[in-house]
């Protein structure tokens, strides 16, 4: 992928023709400036409007989650308190959005807005923490399997295959039914089933990387395995790890919400979006109180959408060779073999095509391109 880039230093030179601003162009000077990788990526990301909107929403959501108690104070409603007088009509039905209950109330007279704010904490916590833990496991397994190969690789790959073939939602239900539902259990289940795809991608990349010249050079200088892995291999995996962690967050959030929706995730009365939606679905409550589905559903959708868009944007920004930039080129030059890759797993795998060819000989390649989507 980026053979020459990050290897040793954290800096990359960005020539001014890609990142020049208008001032430079007007003065006619071609200024060459050195940008750190982070700043170059950030600049490229900034040019992607959809990503910036998504990022804004995510920042807002984090603020809402942090300020949940503030929102509770402003509205004067606690997250688990039931307002049977003001929140329910005389018939015992929840009231719709009004000045007191901005997003309406639920069937017990709780404030939907406050519940959503507290639910955001659960969703973000589970999503981010589980995704990071999943990536950590994926890196450990993928690097070990890819770098050392042989028997270790065989065993680890079989385990990865096994986790990938498990019917994950059913197994999650079985696990929860045995150990009881709780937020920790929920997190564990999400992590357990979310590392396999990333692990496989990282393994494939490491297999390619370890044959590169710079690894050979490091080894000939007497570097130990651990030094090669930490100093030479891991920096080259950073893009993959960042992109997969970001894209893992929405699937973890949906997985948690699905479990909570089935009553096997976060235990009420702790507010969670999945739990709120499940309460709305109970006895078709949402038919008379559509706001009970609309607001939590919208927040859930916006969150997953934002993280997905941000993940795509990050992938394009981190690897300028792929994605939309190619599209722009293609319009001018038709017939150029497209590097375009829209689906991440396929993209990453096809990037390491030497490795793929080797796999194909063993008849293994076919299932490598499978993308799993959680929470169906």
């Amino acid at each position, binding site marked *: 992928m980026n053979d020459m880039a990050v290897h040793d230093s954290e800096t990359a030179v960005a020539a001014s023709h890609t990142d020049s601003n208008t001032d430079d162009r007007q003065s006619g000077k071609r200024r060459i400036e050195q940008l750190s990788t982070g700043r170059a990526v950030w600049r490229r990301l900034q040019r992607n409007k959809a990503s910036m909107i998504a990022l804004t929403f995510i920042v807002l959501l984090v603020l809402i989650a942090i300020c949940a108690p503030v929102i509770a104070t402003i509205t004067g409603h606690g997250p688990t308190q039931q307002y049977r007088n003001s929140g329910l009509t005389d018939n015992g039905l929840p009231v719709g959005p009004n000045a007191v209950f901005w997003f309406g109330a639920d069937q017990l007279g709780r404030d939907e807005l406050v519940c959503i704010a507290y639910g955001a904490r659960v969703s973000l916590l589970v999503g981010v923490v589980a995704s990071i833990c999943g990536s950590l496991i994926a890196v450990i397994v993928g690097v070990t399997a890819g770098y050392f190969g042989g028997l270790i690789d065989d065993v680890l790959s079989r385990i990865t295959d096994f986790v990938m073939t498990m019917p994950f939602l059913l197994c999650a239900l079985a696990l929860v039914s045995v*150990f009881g539902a709780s937020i920790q259990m929920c997190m564990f289940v999400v992590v357990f089933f979310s590392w396999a795809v990333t692990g496989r991608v990282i393994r494939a990349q490491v297999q390619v990387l370890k044959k590169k010249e710079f690894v050979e050079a490091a080894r000939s200088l007497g570097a130990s395995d651990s030094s090669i892995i930490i100093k030479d291999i891991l920096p080259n995996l950073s893009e993959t790890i960042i992109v997969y962690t970001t894209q893992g967050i929405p699937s973890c959030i949906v997985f948690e919400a699905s479990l909570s929706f089935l009553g096997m995730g976060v235990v009420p009365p702790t507010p969670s979006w999945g739990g709120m939606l499940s309460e709305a679905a109970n006895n078709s409550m949402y038919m008379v109180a559509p706001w009970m589905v609309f607001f939590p559903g919208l927040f859930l959708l916006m969150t997953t959408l934002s993280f997905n868009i941000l993940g795509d944007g990050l992938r394009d920004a981190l690897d300028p060779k792929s994605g939309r930039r190619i599209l722009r080129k293609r319009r001018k030059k038709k017939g150029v073999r497209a590097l375009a890759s829209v689906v991440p797993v396929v993209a990453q795998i096809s990037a390491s095509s030497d490795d793929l060819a080797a796999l194909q000989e063993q*008849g293994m390649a076919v299932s490598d391109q499978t993308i799993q989507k959680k929470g169906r």
Partner: protein
Amino acid sequence: MIKNIVKRFVSAVIILLALSIFVFALFYIAPGNPARLIAGEKASQTVLDQVTHNLGLDKPLWQQYLLFVSHALSGNFGISYRNQMPVAGLIASRLPVTFSLVGGAVVLWLLIGIPLGVVSATHPGTWKDRLAQILSQLFISFPSFVLGMFLLYLLYFLPKRHKFTLFPPGGYSQLANGFAQWAWHMTLPWLTLALLMAALYQRLTRAEMMDVLGEDYIRTARAKGLPEHTVIYKHGLRSTLTVLTTQLGADIGSLLSGSIIIEQVFGLQGVGSLAVTSVNTQDRPVIIGVVLLGGFFIVMMNLLVDVLHVALEPTLRK
């Protein structure tokens, strides 16, 4: 090639065995005594011992496991703790619902997803492509239950309020009661599942097609004067089949046990809802049966895909 397939078959069997050990161990270390569950809270110790003995729970774990495997091989997955019915029969009675759901949705999502992907790939950068991309991004992000409930509200409840039944709220009508009734009842669940999956297939088809359309043989096909639609559909789409069948096999396999949420939203009494009920009632034989069945579907679909690839991909035929 046959050697390869046999190898795959063996690994499929090993995965299933591993899965059975996983669920079995899970329930062995689980707290709570199943005998107590059956005998009831007030049963005396002698009754409890009797039930434990009848269930074979007093034997050592490995004996219980071997017994379970040998029974399972002959299609006997034990008796449900709750309603004393054979697990195999219980699951079999739920299968038609799940098969209808997945089968119909597959047709629908292929019909939506692939043409949209082709249009996207042949018109990159135009408004058609943009629109298809935005829609696919949206539906890929949609959690299934949120989409299901939105659709139910829009297509069932709103027409209903105006005294007009567009679609039923859910439930299942047997195929024996007439095809139209069956299809009418399944439309909303199909639509929900199909929209979610079509988004993924649009992306896959688009990425693959864009790759293929830059190939030399496509240029050759155009150069020899073939009409554009022949080039795209006969030569272009043909080479996306490998990726699409791989994904399709994996999706069908996991959906046959994993359409839990859609079944739950639309009140369909399929395998998924059976799993949820048995988890809620701690009905262990049923959970084990459903998990194994789910694993079986996934493994079998993967195997089927591998065999299909040999037929589709001439380079694999040796």
